[in-house]
């Protein structure tokens, strides 16, 4: 480990690097476009009218701020630290994904782009993208692995109701990674009029930075809410990490608060040793994919290996580059949590709090089960409940052997 930097909040550098990670590893055809996007994002960031429109939509369309909630019964059951939830699952469309989509579609409109594309795994980002496209009247094409299309029918139908075209992708294992490849291929051939709304804090610079900035509303609100309610900052933040957008959104505003510890929870699937997991940091190595350098699941020849998680939203063989940097710098710890642990935490949260959490968020809740004991009753752990679990009831029923 190197000497800690003066601030953990001033990344990336001007070339889009978070330490050794990030960057712009794209084909030459896309380079001028990502450079344009960066220029336009800088201009938008400096434009009070842009920020005002973003804030206004978050308040009146998304329903922000999302509540900060003291989970009393879960706290009692775990018998350790006070457990608080950041309730991102109460957002319009049921997850944190919409925060980023609002920001990116405003950028697309600002850049004069007339068509929107996106990739989706579980369908949450697809639904959020289709939603903002309907809201702003832009045609929307969603690339989705054929395997995911088959197992996420309700979300496929939601996207169609919202007016989006859903394109099933047959290549590879026909899941999120392949959907992203196909979205990039479509983008390369349509750069003149098409904006690609990437759903997580990954991809070529400036995507990891701008997705983080749009999602940082989570952490900014949580920090202010916690101070107002308890007069202090939390001792520990926990969030699930696939690409890592809900986690970086919660963590980033706290990164320079040295007394706030942070844990990102990776999906361990059937266990790291089984090889069937989606834990890029714990079980992967640095490499280059989808426009950025970051930790990836790969073999010794650099071929990308398939990820596995019960949670479709975590089922991706990479992770956002800022997480790779935070991992190596030691500022954030990362913990693998398996399918079974997540499933157990899912059920406990339903019964004790009357909240059906997404399977993604259930990974963060499962980490809580492991950690709450290590903290005293006057300490505070804040968990990001990034999405609601209605979409997951079929998967859960199947795992529990229940026929619907």
């Amino acid at each position, binding site marked *: 480990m190197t000497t800690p930097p003066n601030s953990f909040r001033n990344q990336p550098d001007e*070339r889009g690097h978070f330490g050794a990670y990030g*960057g*712009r*590893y*794209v*084909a*030459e*055809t*896309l*380079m*001028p*476009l990502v450079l344009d996007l960066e220029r336009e994002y800088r201009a938008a960031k400096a434009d009070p009218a842009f920020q005002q429109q973003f804030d206004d939509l978050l308040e009146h369309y998304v329903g922000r701020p999302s509540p900060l909630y003291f989970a009393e019964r879960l706290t009692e059951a775990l018998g350790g630290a006070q457990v608080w939830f950041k309730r991102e699952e109460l957002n319009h469309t049921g997850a944190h994904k919409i925060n980023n989509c609002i920001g990116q579609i405003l950028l697309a409109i600002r850049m004069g782009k007339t068509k929107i594309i996106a990739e989706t795994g579980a369908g949450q980002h697809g639904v959020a993208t289709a939603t903002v496209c309907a809201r702003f009247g832009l045609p929307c094409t969603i690339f989705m692995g054929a395997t995911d299309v088959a197992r996420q029918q309700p979300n496929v139908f939601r996207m169609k109701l919202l007016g989006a075209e859903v394109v099933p992708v047959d*290549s*590879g294992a026909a899941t999120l*990674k392949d959907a992203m*490849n196909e979205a*990039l*291929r479509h983008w*390369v*051939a349509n*750069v*003149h009029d098409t904006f690609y709304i990437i759903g997580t804090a990954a991809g070529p610079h400036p995507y990891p930075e701008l997705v983080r900035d749009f999602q940082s509303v989570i952490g900014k609100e949580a920090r202010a809410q916690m101070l107002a309610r308890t007069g202090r900052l939390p001792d520990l933040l926990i969030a699930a990490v696939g690409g890592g957008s809900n986690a970086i959104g919660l963590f980033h505003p706290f990164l320079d608060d040295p007394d706030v510890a942070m844990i990102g929870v990776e999906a361990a699937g059937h266990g790291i040793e089984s090889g069937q997991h989606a834990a890029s940091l714990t079980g992967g190595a640095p*490499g*280059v*994919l*989808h*426009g950025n350098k970051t930790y*990836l699941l*790969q073999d*010794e*020849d*650099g*071929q*990308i290996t398939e990820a596995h998680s019960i949670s479709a939203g975590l089922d991706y063989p990479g992770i956002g580059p800022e997480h790779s940097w935070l991992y190596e710098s030691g500022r954030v710890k990362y913990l693998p949590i398996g399918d079974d642990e997540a499933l157990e935490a899912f059920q406990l949260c339903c019964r004790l709090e009357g909240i059906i959490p997404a399977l993604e968020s259930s990974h963060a809740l499962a980490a809580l089960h492991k950690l709450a004991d290590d903290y005293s009753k006057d300490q505070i752990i804040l968990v990001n409940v990034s999405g609601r679990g209605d979409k997951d009831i079929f998967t859960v029923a199947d795992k529990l052997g229940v026929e619907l």
Partner: protein
Amino acid sequence: MSSRLSSAFAKPHPALVTFITAGDGDTAANLDALVEGGADLIELGMPFTDPMADGPAIQAANIRSLGAGTTTAEVLRIAREFRQRHPDVPLVLMGYANPMVRRGPEWFASAAAEAGVDGVICVDIPPEEDDALGPALRAAGIAPIRLATPTTDAARLPQVLEGSTGFLYYVSVAGITGKQQAVQASIEEAVERLKAATDLPVAVGFGVRTPEQAAAIARVADGVVVGSALVELVGEHGRDAPEHLRKLTSALSEEIRTAR
């Protein structure tokens, strides 16, 4: 620049550059067929699980190759044996960053040099990120070959050309391999623009499928790259691919030789 690469562009006719994916079918026999058919320069594709810039034909070739168990060591062995059989035919590896940098850029550069490779085209390392692989290749005596595209504007072109060696690969369509073909007039305009900015030979590829298209491009460019049409023949004909490859390559070569 490698003398083999420069000699490919020093012939009295434009160079025919042919691409196939390593490990897809009997690659040695297929490569020999390309040479017999009249290919002036060989691009050997390194298979990758996520070929983001490629259309269906080359995607399928990558899947077939990896499905057959092709490793980086196998790609290098194919290159080394090609070099032994064809000491004078220039050979360029083309692929994606991750398999090239997995064991470190220096490892890859020296392994490729040892296998007799003359140049490397890496699709997803633009000049802005090329501070490790490019220098490692140059140090090993291998030419890093850059791509220019219809979206590469005048302001960016110098950056693309800086550190570019061997030849300049002009990707004639903003898109993926093997799909639509560019309008001839736009190719002519682009080649003229590029040749005004560099002394490097300019080879044009993406979407070139027939001898007629190749001939039209050969009238203005220093080289014509054909990939997907050949890769499709490998996919379609399997063990019988060499004779089909030889036939198409001969037809392409003949048109190119008489184009001007």
